[in-house]
C-alpha cells in the first residue's frame, strides 16, 4: 500500500478541523491588524508589563485568551466525559460553579458577612470545601442520570435552576467579598503567569495522564457507544456514567473557585452565567459528537480556547460587548458547518473521485 500523502495525513488528523478553526480566528486578527496598520504580529506579541502594584506580568492577546478561557477549558474537560458516556450534557455546570464559589466565600468570610478582610477559616479548607461541593453536585447529577435513568438534560436542569438559589441562600442574599490577598491568587498571577492558566494546565495534564495510564477513557467510550454490550463485557455502565458526572462536578467546582477568585467575591447571580453553553459548545467545536461515544479531549480544549479567541477578537475589532454575541453566533455557525457530516462526506467523495481518476 502506498503511503498517504502529507496533505491527506494532515486532513485525516482528528484535530484538523478544530485547529483550522482556531487558526482562522487568529487569521482574522492578523488581517485586522494589517488593515489598521498595526504590527501584523501584534496578536502574538507577549510583553512584560508593570501592574498598578509592583508586580510584573505577562501581557498580550494570546495571554488574555489563555487566561480568560481557563474556566471554559476546565469545564470542557468534564463536559467531554459526560457527553461521551451518556450522550447528554450537564447543563448545571455554570450554576454549580456559582454555588461552589458562594460556599467557598461563605466559609472564608463567615456566614452573613458581606465583606471580610480576615479569613474566618483557613484558605485551603474553604477552597477544598468549595470543590468538594462541586463533586457532590456531580454525584447528585450522576445518580439521577445513571441510576434513575433520567434524561441528562432534565436531571441536570434541577441543579441548573436550584444551585444559584442555594448559593444565594448560603450567602444570605449578599455578594460576599473576600478582600484578602491570598484568596485572589487563584484568579490572579503566579509570578508573571496568570494563575488560571496554570490551574487549567494542571487539570488538563492530570486528566490526560489519567486517560493515558488507566482504562477510564476506553471504558467511557465503550459505555457511550454501546452501554448494553459494555455491561455484558463486564463494565459497570451505570457506575462509569456516574463517575463522569462526578468528574464534571469536580471540574465545575474548580472553575467556580477560579471565577470567584478573579473577582475576589461570590457574585452568585453572575459567576458562571451561560458557561454551561460555552462548555457544551467547546465540546462540539472540538469535533466531538454530542451523540456520545468516541471523544477527543484535546479537541474540546482547543474548542474552549477558540470560543475565548472569538470573544477577544471581537473586542479587539471594536465590536461592542452587547453586539458581540451576534458575531460570535455567526462564527460558530461557520465553524460548526465546516465540521458537519455532509461537508465532510462531500470532501471525502471528492478525494475518492480524484483517486479513481488518478488510478485510471
Amino acid at each position: 500500500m502506498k503511503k498517504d500523502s502529507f496533505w491527506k495525513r494532515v486532513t485525516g488528523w482528528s484535530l484538523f478541523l478544530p485547529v483550522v478553526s482556531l487558526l482562522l480566528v487568529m487569521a482574522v486578527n492578523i488581517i485586522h491588524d494589517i488593515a489598521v496598520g498595526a504590527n501584523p504580529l501584534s496578536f502574538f506579541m507577549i510583553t512584560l508589563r508593570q501592574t498598578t502594584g509592583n508586580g510584573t506580568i505577562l501581557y498580550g492577546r494570546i495571554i488574555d485568551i489563555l487566561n480568560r478561557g481557563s474556566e471554559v477549558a476546565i469545564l470542557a474537560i468534564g463536559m467531554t466525559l459526560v457527553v461521551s458516556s451518556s450522550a447528554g450534557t450537564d447543563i448545571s455546570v455554570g450554576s454549580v460553579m456559582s454555588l461552589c464559589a458562594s460556599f467557598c466565600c461563605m466559609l472564608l468570610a463567615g456566614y452573613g458577612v458581606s465583606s471580610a478582610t480576615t479569613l474566618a477559616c483557613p484558605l485551603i479548607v474553604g477552597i477544598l470545601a468549595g470543590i468538594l461541593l462541586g463533586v457532590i453536585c456531580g454525584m447528585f447529577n450522576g445518580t439521577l442520570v445513571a441510576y434513575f435513568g433520567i434524561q441528562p438534560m432534565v436531571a441536570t436542569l434541577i441543579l441548573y435552576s436550584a444551585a444559584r438559589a442555594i448559593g444565594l441562600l448560603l450567602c444570605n442574599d449578599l455578594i460576599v467579598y473576600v478582600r484578602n490577598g491570598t484568596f485572589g491568587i487563584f484568579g490572579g498571577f503566579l509570578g508573571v503567569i496568570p494563575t488560571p492558566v496554570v490551574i487549567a494546565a494542571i487539570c488538563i495534564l492530570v486528566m490526560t495522564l489519567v486517560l493515558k495510564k488507566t482504562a477510564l477513557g476506553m471504558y467511557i467510550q465503550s459505555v457511550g457507544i454501546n452501554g448494553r454490550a459494555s455491561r455484558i463485557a463486564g463494565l459497570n455502565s451505570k457506575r462509569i456514567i456516574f463517575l463522569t458526572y462526578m468528574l464534571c462536578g469536580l471540574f465545575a467546582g474548580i472553575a467556580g473557585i477560579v471565577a470567584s477568585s478573579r473577582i475576589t467575591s461570590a457574585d452568585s447571580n453572575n459567576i458562571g452565567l451561560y458557561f454551561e453553553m460555552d462548555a457544551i459548545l467547546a465540546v462540539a467545536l472540538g469535533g466531538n459528537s454530542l451523540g456520545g461515544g468516541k471523544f477527543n479531549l484535546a479537541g474540546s480544549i482547543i474548542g474552549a480556547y477558540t470560543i475565548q479567541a472569538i470573544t477577544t477578537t471581537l473586542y479587539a475589532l471594536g465590536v461592542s460587548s452587547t453586539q458581540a454575541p451576534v458575531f460570535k453566533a455567526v462564527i460558530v455557525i461557520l465553524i460548526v458547518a465546516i465540521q458537519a457530516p455532509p461537508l465532510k462526506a462531500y470532501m471525502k467523495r471528492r478525494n475518492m473521485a480524484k483517486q479513481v481518476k488518478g488510478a485510471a
Partner: protein
Amino acid sequence: MEENVVLTARGITMTFPGVKALENVDFTLRKGEIHALMGENGAGKSTLIKCLTGINDFEAGEIHVDGISGPVKNHSTKDAQEVGISTVYQEVNLCPNLSVAENLFIGREPMTKFHTVDRRSYNKRSQKIMDELGIAVDVTQNLENYSLAIQQMVAIARAVDMDCKVLILDEPTSSLDDEEVEKLFTLMRSLRDKGVGIIFVTHFLEQVYAVCDRITVLRDGQLVGEYPIADLPRVKLVAAMMGKNLDDLAEIQKESIEDVSRNPLEISAKGLSHTGTIKPFDLDIHKGEVVGIAGLLGSGRSELARAIYGADRASSGTLSVGGKEVKIKEPIDAMNLGMGMLPDDRKAEGIIGDLSVRENIILALQAKRGMFNLLSRAKQEEIAARYIDLVQIKTADQETLVKQLSGGNQQKVILARWLATDPDFLILDEPTRGIDVGTKSEIQKMIVKLAGEGKSILFISSEIAEMLRTCNRMAIMRDGEKVGELDHDLTQENVMKAIAGGEGTK
C-alpha cells in the same frame, strides 16, 4: 431488454476505501422468480443490494428496470421504491406502536375530501390486501401485538402494495422459527406467481432449495455465476461460495466427543429463575462438556443462559461454580468466576461499533483487570494480533473500526474477546447466526477444541444439526421452561420430538 426480465445490473463496480467491494458484477432477475443471492460474509451481497436500492453510490455499471428506458440510478431507497424496487430487512423497519393498517399506508395515507386521513377506507383496503396475501391479521391492531414473522409479512405487504416489481428480502428468516419460515415461503410463492421478481438473501442453504428457482453466487466481490437451482446441488453451491471443495459440514465427527459425565462439575444451577422470562431450572455442566440448549425461538433459551451469567439477575435459586456456591449480580461477577457470554444480539449486546478491533478484543480482559490496571499498548496489540490470527478475523488491521467488518467477522471479534479472557465456562448464544458456512464450521470446530481443553460450553443454536455435531448433552426448552434433557440417542428426530413435546423427554 430480454423478454421477461424485470431487472438487470451490468458491470456494477464499487470500492470502499482500500477494498473493491464489487467488481464488474452482473445480475439478472426475471419476472416471477425467486432468485437466491448467495455468498460468504463479505462476498458483496449486501453491497450489491445497497447499490440496487440506492443506499450505495456505485462507481461504474448500469441498472435497468423493466418498463423504464435508460439506466436507472437510485440515490435513495425512495427513488428505488419509485422504480419498483422494495426491500424488506431482517430487522423490520416499521412502527410497532402503530396499527397494521397505519403501517401499510404510512406516508401515503388515503385522504378524504377534507384533507384528513381517511381511516375507514384505509382500514378496509388494508384488510383486503392482507386477505389477498393470505395473512390472517386484524389490521386495526398495533403491529407490536404480532410476531416478528407477521411484522415482516406486513413489511412485505406494504412493499407489494406499492407496486413493486422487485422485492428484495435480506435475511428475512434469521429470526423466524420453522413454522413462521414456512408461512413466509407461502407468501413468497404466491407473490412469485403474481409475477414479482424476488431476490432472496439467506444463509440457510436448505431454505434456498425450498423456495428458490435460481441462484447467483458472489465471491470476494466478483460474480461466480448464475445457475438454475437444479444445476447446483448443495455441495456445489458451497464449493462455489467458498471457492474450494468442502467435503461436508459434518467433518466434525461426533465420535471425537468423549464421555465427560464423570468430570467434576463446573456449573450447577438449582432452581435458578428470572421472573417473567424463565421458570426455575436445574442445570449441571461438567468440565470439558458441551451442553446444548434446544428449543424454539422465544422458548427461554437465551434467558436461561442470561440468568446464569447475570445478564438478567436471577430472582431465585442457587448457582455453584466449581463446587462453590456463588452470588452473581452483574456480568462482571460471572466473569471473575471464569465465565464469558457471547450474546445472541451481536449488534445490541456484542460489538462496540465505534471502537477498533483491538479495543473490542481486549475489552473484556481489561474490564476484568480493572480500570487502574491498563494493559500496555504493546500488550494489547500482541493479544489482538494473536486472536485475530487464531480465529482468523478478516480485517485490514487492528485499528479498523469493528463496525466496518462484515457480520461474521464481528462475531469472531466477540469470540476473540472471550477467548482472550481464558474462560472456564463459555456461553455461546447463536454464535453462528447470520454467518457463512465456512465460518460456521470453524466455530463448531473451535467449540469442540475448547471442550477438549477442559473448558465447559453452553451452546445455544436454532440449528439442531450443528448442536448434534458438537454437544454431549442437550437441554430442551419449551415456553420459558426447561422441560428435559437428552444425553443419548442425540438425533435430529429425537430432539425435534422433545422440543415439540410428548416422548423423548425425561
